[in-house]
């Protein structure tokens, strides 16, 4: 759509500009199929939107953890060499806060997403949905958040209340353009 005349009433001009902003300007790029989007879109939101079918329990996850995770995160998930995954609850207010999934992460969905997206290192994408659910269940169980027999799936995972869910300020993140902060520091 084009605005042909400068003499059109202001209201019409405004609606014309709004309509133009919604019209493709260059007509480059192609429309992906729904199947293509499904294949590319691995995002999981905090309400669990995007989680695939499948399920797992801590018991199933234990063996998987041993084979796929323990080499970097330690046999008990606390000793490393990489980041500890288990423990740390009650340490956040100390001078040595131990941030783990259990002590710090506000959403259980993030655990599923991160294992699915990037773990294990050098074998990314090799775990099935069931395996990711099982390892997630194992880590939640070992952090004292769920029972060993709890079945974790697309329905139950987002409902898990993480211990540090209310440990963040502000509760809703936002950004303001040209916001003035003392010394430029977020506080």
């Amino acid at each position, binding site marked *: 759509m084009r605005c042909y005349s400068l003499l059109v009433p202001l209201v019409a001009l405004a609606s014309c500009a709004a309509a133009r*902003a*919604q019209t*493709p*300007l*260059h007509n*480059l*790029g*192609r*429309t*992906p199929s729904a199947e*293509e*989007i499904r294949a*590319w*879109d*691995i*995002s*999981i*939101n*905090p309400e669990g939107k995007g989680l695939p079918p499948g399920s797992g329990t801590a018991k199933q996850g234990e063996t998987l953890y041993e084979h796929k995770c323990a080499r970097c995160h330690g046999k008990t998930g606390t000793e490393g060499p990489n*980041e500890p995954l288990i423990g740390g609850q009650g340490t*956040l*207010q100390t*001078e*040595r*806060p131990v*941030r783990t999934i259990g002590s*710090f*992460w*506000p*959403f259980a*969905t*993030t655990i599923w*997403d*991160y294992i699915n*997206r*990037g*773990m294990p*290192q*050098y074998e*990314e*994408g090799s775990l099935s949905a069931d395996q990711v659910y099982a390892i997630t269940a194992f880590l939640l169980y070992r952090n004292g958040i769920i029972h060993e027999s709890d079945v974790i799936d697309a329905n139950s995972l987002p409902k898990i209340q993480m211990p540090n869910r209310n*440990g*963040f*300020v*502000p509760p809703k*993140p*936002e*950004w303001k*353009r*040209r*916001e*003035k*902060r*003392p*010394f*430029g*520091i*977020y*506080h």
Partner: protein
Amino acid sequence: MNTKERGRRRFLKGGAALAGLAVGEIRSASGQAIGSERPEVRPEDFRAYGERSRFVTSVRRDPRNPNSRTPLQDSVGIITPSALHFMVPTWIDPPDIDPWQHRLLIHGMVDRPLIFSMEELKRLPSVSRIHFVECAGSGDSLEERKKNGMLAETVQRTHGLTACSEWTGVLLSMLLRETGVQKEATWLVAEGAEPRKRSKSIPLEKAMDDVLVAYGQNGEPVRPEQGYPLRLVVPGFEGVHNIKWLRRIKVLDQPSMEKEETSHYPTQRPDLGKARWFQFEMGPKSVITFPSGGQRLPSRGFYEITGLAWSGGGAIQRVEVSTDGGRTWKDAELQEPVLRMAHTRFRFPWNWDGDEAVLQSRCTDDVEAIQPTLAEFGRIWGGVDSEYLKTTRNKVNHINAIQPWKVSRDGSVRNALL
């Protein structure tokens, strides 16, 4: 090889022989040849793709730390050579992406999801902009002291997680106009194509403001370790937002809450007992790059103190330099161009009288935010004193404290933050 090409090669060889002769003939007053030996690089090699002089040895690799950092002590001007741009993380090899296969998908809360090839992106109207990219952990001079008892020695160690490039690409706002954005949308998540598919949520308002989808860096394609063939540049924001090897953008009505906005980047605030969730812009920061830690002044006399200043909040308005440990401050000269969210070079003439001197700089940006001392930083960041910052194992990001360097009588320069 065709005739023309053979002729060109002959010409290059002939030119090299002449150049070699000339080098051999240049002698200094003492009779010693300049340069101890002939370069072993064949002329064809460095003419095909330029090499720096073999006498220039500045590198971003640092044997004392696996992280690679920009060697700011050797920097001149405001542009960081692409080959010296810091790399985070360093433990992954950059993916080997064929640009003909690479695609960018934009979907989610848009009217028309679109997939772009690199060829299509390059047909769109482009912009070039000079911006710094800085890691949220940059400027933490205390980190090394906590690990091995010693303050970071050089400016590469203290501030080397920043770099400034000219980025060329298309504005994300333009791509989002191509797809149309639904009214309820407020965020997007950007994702890389590397095996671990690092992702980060970004406010839509920022995306519509000045975010670049870049394929060019300093006059050539973005380097593989910087995101070839396509990356995001989010001016002024923590480095983690600048997703490399960009493959997907999903428009959302809330942050996606993936790992990068969950585990490392929130700040646990001692005074609130809670974590500051999202932190976006890097604060105003400046540092003297010469003279700086680990360097040595050969004699008393004239030196040009120089350094860099930058702010995620906008353009640098003022840089002041103190040569007496912060008792008095004088304005430094700002080198044009002074750009928003870009390194700005400052200069300050100085005659060193041979006595001990503590050199430091502080900057002010154009929203009037001023660079703090370490004590001021601690107070605002979390109601803590410098003692806390020296010892805590709590992760402290966004440190933008004034950095003092102490010049001793023997001309040696060391980190004098504490």
